[in-house]
């Protein structure tokens, strides 16, 4: 996984709450067996609407999504994270994330940064006044700022995910470093626990 330290990119206001995973990417787009190529499915239903924010030229190169609360509710599909990344997003800002979406983001390297609802509103106002404006997200210092200093605030992300993203570490490699602990645990499991196939 690539290291993430700081990112500056065009902010995209997505003024909706409860953006669920079926909105982020509908099920019919989930049939690929790769991790790439999901950008076509991103917000597929909304992209038919000429007024949808991503259809506005100024936001075409957007990479910091500024979304309403309860972003990513619903399905466990990591494809939602991949679709955002495939499209070019590096960061999603929201006042609340669904747990599974937040977890998936951390694993896949998308920064899901939780900020106060008021910060989202200030960013929306700022982007309304300055369409195409950039936002800087600094993972080291957990800050979100606009270059002119109009918005300067901090965000939340759990320390462990932050550490992993900063160092670009892969969870599986870390866990396999604790192989002996896993083997010891397995040795103590009761014999009556079910198995799907017998030796």
């Amino acid at each position: 996984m690539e290291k993430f330290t700081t990112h500056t990119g065009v902010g995209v206001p997505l003024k909706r709450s409860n953006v669920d995973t079926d909105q982020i990417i509908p099920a019919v787009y989930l049939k690929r067996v790769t991790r790439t190529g999901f950008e076509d499915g991103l917000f597929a239903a909304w992209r038919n609407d000429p007024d949808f924010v991503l259809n506005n030229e100024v936001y075409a190169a957007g990479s910091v999504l500024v979304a309403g609360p309860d972003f990513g509710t619903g399905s466990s599909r990591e494809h939602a994270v991949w679709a955002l990344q495939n499209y070019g997003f590096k960061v999603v800002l929201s006042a609340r994330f669904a747990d599974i979406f937040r977890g998936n983001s951390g694993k896949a390297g998308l920064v899901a940064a939780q900020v106060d609802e008021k910060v989202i509103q200030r960013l929306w106002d700022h982007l309304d006044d300055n369409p195409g404006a950039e936002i800087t997200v600094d993972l080291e210092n957990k800050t979100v700022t606009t270059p002119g200093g109009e918005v300067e605030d901090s965000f939340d992300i759990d320390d462990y995910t932050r550490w992993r993203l900063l160092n670009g570490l892969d969870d599986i490699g870390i866990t396999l470093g604790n192989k002996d602990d896993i083997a010891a645990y397995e040795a103590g499991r009761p014999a009556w626990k079910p198995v799907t196939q017998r030796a």
Partner: protein
Amino acid sequence: MMGCKLYSGGMAKTLSEKVWDEHVVRSTAGEPDLLYIDLHLIHEVTSPQAFDGLRLAGRPVRRPDLTLATEDHNVPTLDWDKPIADPVSKTQVDTLRKNAAEFGVRLHPLGDIEQGIVHVVGPQLGLTQPGMTIVCGDSHTSTHGAFGAIAFGIGTSEVEHVLATQTLMQAKPKTMAVTINGSLPAGVTAKDMVLTLITHTGTGGGQGYIVEYRGQAIEELSMEGRMTVCNMSIEWGAKAGLIAPDQTTFDYIEGKPEAPKGADWDAAVAHWKTLVTDEDAVFDKEIVLDASTMTPFVTWGTNPGQGVALGGVVPTPSDFDDEQDRIAAENALTYMGLTAGTPMRDVKVDTVFVGSCTNGRIEDLRLAADILKGHKVDPNTRLLVVPGSVRVRMQAEAEGLHEIFLAAGAEWRGAGCSMCLGMNPDQLTPGERSASTSNRNFEGRQGKGGRTHLVSIPVAAATAVRGTLSSPADLVSVEV
């Protein structure tokens, strides 16, 4: 119990804390716990990239014997004995078959007698048992919590993590109790109960919590009813939902193919009986509801928290205090093509879907058949009955339920997720309205532009007959 980390007294704990603590492989301050996973369920949609990852890194599946795969999300429910017509779906299913063979994972493919929706198959095989940790790349894994297991959905990176290590890194969630006192009135089901709860809490109300459902109304539910409640835990944002195992649980598991036998059974039950919340244990949050006041409940909007009693009306957005709720309601009414103030019973429905991991088990089909018996589906309405598994389908046919469905004019299908997520050919067309026994009414969930009302089995069956949202009480009784 022989040196294993089973619960052995100490501080008062809730049920979920006991199960959690029994599965901690490694715990370090400032890091998530490393949790052992007892059962990993797999299906065709969220696994291909995980197996790819293993292949790239040259890693094996650590415990194929704790892993089970089935084909469900994407498979056709018609002509399931023929090659899959959609080439992209076929690739996904073929990829699962190839991966299962290469990595030694047990698979129940289309056409196999044990095939079906992953959350129907686990319990019916007896693989789902109290006190386990169960994960699957599907958010409705919470279903298995009905047995007193910690069960939750994971993303594909985590699927790969579990395949490679049989563990997951997880921060310990907070605990919540949802106590539902009293008894459900006749004709009101577990589905109405959970829809009522979600409208009460909102879709984010459970975020960050493992929830224990308890109280008289929960204890009185069958295992299948409990699965319906736990299934929808994720719809109000909970990490997982679970119910303490009791005699109902043990009776359900006993004799199932993969259930413990003989001395193992006794040892297992002895342990399962310890899996209750200690009397003096403290939850981080509690919600109390009264089942006796509950009525048939349906959704009017585009998330499962936008619900109302069937006897109520489509709400008026300006009635919502919160601005985000008001905007969400306005958007939902536009999408759903509904006018504020319309009685829910006047809403005309084009398609009724009976099925899914929420309501696609045998008791659901029995209840639907019971209501449909002697009735005909409204000529302007289509009724799709999709059993949750091949076993459910066979049981229903052995009981003659399919004849009741067919005589009423319903379509009787093969097992799978079907119209629950509209990934296979069973989809709504734009503007088409459904009453669905599944769990999500998101925009486009059942097909692009489709409009979904979540309902219970009795409401689904009565709606099919009348063509408008209805309960069995609205049906003119027939001689049968």
